[in-house]
C-alpha cells in the first residue's frame, strides 16, 4: 500500500515535471479563424520591456504541402513560440515567412524561422527599409524591448514582391500583394483564397489608433482599392478579426480623412507644423486606444507630406 502511494506520488511528480517542461517550452495562444488559418491576438500596448515588443497580430496558414507564416513576431522568443505552435498543430513544413512590413513587432521573430527550406518574403522596398532602420532598431532594442537584438535578427527577404505573387501551399493559394506607400512604404497584404480571408496586417487598425509611417494619401488610395474586394473576413495588424468588409474599415477611414482635411486646411491658412500638432483632431481621442502615443506623430507626418501638395 505504502509502495503504491510512493509510486503514484512519483508518477504524479514525474507527470508534473513533464507538464512543467512542456509549459516552459511553450507555445503561443492561437485561434483557428478558418480551417488551416490561425491567428494570435496582439494586445493594444506600446512595445516595452514587459511585452518585449510582442504586440502585433501574427499567424499562419497551413496548406497540404507548406505552411506560410504571416509575420514572425516582435522578438526571437515570440518567433520561437509561434514556430513551436505550428509544429504542434501540423507536420506540414514551414516554407515561407511573409513579413508584412518593416516594423519591429512584425519582423523580429524572423531569426527563429531561419533554416533550410524556409524563404522570407517581403515588399520590394522591405530590404531598403530594413537597411535604413535596422541599425537603429538593433541599437535601441535592449533599452526599449529588454531584448538584445543583433545583426542576425535582421533577415532580408529572399523573395521580393513588386506587384503580386501567388504562393501555392498545396491545395491552397495565397495571393501576396505589394502596395504603394501607405502605412509604410513597404506594405504587403495576403489573400487566402480558400477561406476568403484578407490578411491586411497594419494596412488596417481596429481599436488601436492607425499609425502613419508612409503616406496618408497613398494609404487612402490603397484602402479604396482594397475595400472593393469581396472577402469573408479581414485580419488587422492590431485589433480583432473583422467579418464585415468593408464596413470594418469605416473608423480608420474616417480618422485618416479627418487628418487629410484638417491638416490640409491649416497648411492653406499658412499655419505651421507646431500649430497643427497642437490643434488637429483632438476630439477623436476617446475613440482609439493609444491615441496619445501616436496621434501627434501622425499629424507631423501628414503635415510634412501635404505641404508639398501644391
Amino acid at each position: 500500500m505504502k509502495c503504491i502511494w510512493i509510486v503514484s506520488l512519483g508518477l504524479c511528480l514525474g507527470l508534473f515535471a513533464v507538464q512543467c517542461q512542456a509549459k516552459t517550452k511553450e507555445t503561443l495562444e492561437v485561434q483557428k479563424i478558418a480551417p488551416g488559418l490561425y491567428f494570435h491576438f496582439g494586445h493594444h500596448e506600446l512595445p516595452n520591456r514587459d511585452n518585449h515588443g510582442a504586440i502585433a497580430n501574427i499567424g499562419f496558414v497551413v496548406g497540404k504541402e507548406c505552411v506560410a507564416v504571416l509575420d514572425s513576431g516582435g522578438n526571437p522568443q515570440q518567433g520561437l513560440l509561434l514556430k513551436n505552435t505550428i509544429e504542434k498543430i501540423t507536420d506540414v513544413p514551414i516554407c515561407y515567412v511573409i513579413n508584412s512590413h518593416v516594423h519591429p513587432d512584425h519582423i523580429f521573430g524572423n531569426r527563429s524561422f531561419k533554416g533550410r527550406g524556409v524563404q522570407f518574403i517581403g515588399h520590394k522596398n522591405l530590404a531598403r527599409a530594413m537597411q535604413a532602420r535596422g541599425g537603429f532598431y538593433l541599437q535601441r532594442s535592449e533599452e526599449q524591448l529588454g531584448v538584445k537584438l543583433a545583426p542576425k535578427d535582421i533577415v532580408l527577404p529572399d523573395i521580393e514582391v513588386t506587384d503580386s505573387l501567388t504562393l501555392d501551399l498545396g491545395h491552397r493559394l495565397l495571393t501576396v500583394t505589394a502596395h504603394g506607400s501607405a502605412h509604410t512604404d513597404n506594405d504587403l497584404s495576403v489573400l487566402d483564397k480558400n477561406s476568403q480571408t484578407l490578411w491586411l496586417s497594419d494596412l488596417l487598425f481596429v481599436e488601436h489608433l492607425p499609425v502613419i509611417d508612409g503616406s496618408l494619401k497613398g494609404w487612402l488610395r490603397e484602402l479604396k482599392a482594397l475595400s472593393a474586394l469581396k472577402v469573408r473576413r479581414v485580419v488587422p495588424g492590431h485589433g480583432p478579426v473583422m467579418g464585415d468588409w468593408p464596413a470594418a474599415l469605416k473608423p480608420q477611414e474616417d480618422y485618416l480623412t479627418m487628418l487629410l482635411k484638417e491638416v490640409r486646411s491649416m497648411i492653406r491658412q499658412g499655419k505651421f507644423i507646431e500649430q497643427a500638432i497642437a490643434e488637429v483632431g483632438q476630439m477623436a481621442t476617446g475613440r482609439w486606444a493609444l491615441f496619445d502615443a501616436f496621434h501627434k506623430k501622425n499629424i507631423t507626418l501628414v503635415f510634412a507630406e501635404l505641404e508639398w501638395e501644391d
Partner: protein
Amino acid sequence: MKMVRVIVSFLAMFFVNAVSAGVDDTVWKNELKTQFFADRSISETENIIAIEAPYRAEDAALVPIRITSKINQTNDKYIKKITLIVDKNPTPFAAEFNFTPLSGKADVAMRLRINSYSYVRAIAEMNDGQLIMAKKFVKASGGCSAPIGADLDAAMKRLGRMKFKLSGTAQSNEPNLAQLLISHPNITGMQMDQVTRFIRPAYYVEEVKVTFDGQPVLTAKTDIAISADPNFRFYFVPQSSGDLRAEVSDTDGNTFSQTYRVEP
C-alpha cells in the same frame, strides 16, 4: 533562476534609465563644449535667445525646433551666428546659421532628427564675440519611431524642389517671416554593412544661402540632424520690392535654387 532573471532585468532597467533618462550635461561639458568653442566662456543669460522644443518628440524623425531672439538686429548689436547642437546624436552638430543686420530678427525654426533623450542647445554668437546659450531637453519617443523619413521614393521624386512661403503680405522696412521648403531626402549614412546588400552613403543638404536682392539674409551650414525635406523659417527686411533667393547645395555637389518676388 527566475529570481535571478528578475533581479538582472531590474538592474538592467535601472541602468538604462540612469543612462538614458538622465537630464545630463556630461557629453557637452566633457567633449562638445571644447570641441566647438574651445575655452571661450558661454553665458546662459535669458535676454538674448530662447529655444522652443517639445519635451517629448512625437516623431523622432521630425522634431520642430524654434529659436527666437529677444533683440532686433541692428548694425551696432546683432546676433552673428547661432550654432545648434544635439548632444546625444551620432553627429551632434546639427546646423550653424549666420545672420546679418538685414535679417531683422535672428529667429530660425527648423525640424530635427533626435536619436535619443538629449539636450538640444543653441549657442548665439554676438557681433562682439560674446557667446550666449539656450537649451531644452527633449525625450525622443520610442516604439517604431526611427529618425528616418517615411516615404523615400516620394522624397527622391521631389528632390531639389523648393518653395518660399511668406506669412501675409510683405511689409517694407520691417522683419517679415519667410519659410523655405527644400525637398531633399537627407539620407543618413548610418547603415550597418552586416545587414545590407547596398550601402547608401550619407546624402544631405550641407549649405543653404538666402539673399534678398543679392544681400545675405541667412546662411546655414547644415548636417544630417536636419530632417528630410529641410524646412526653415526666418526673417528678412525688404526696403522695397526685390528677389528673395535661395541657393542650396548637397553633399553630392548638386545645387538647387529658387527665387521669389517680394512686393511690399
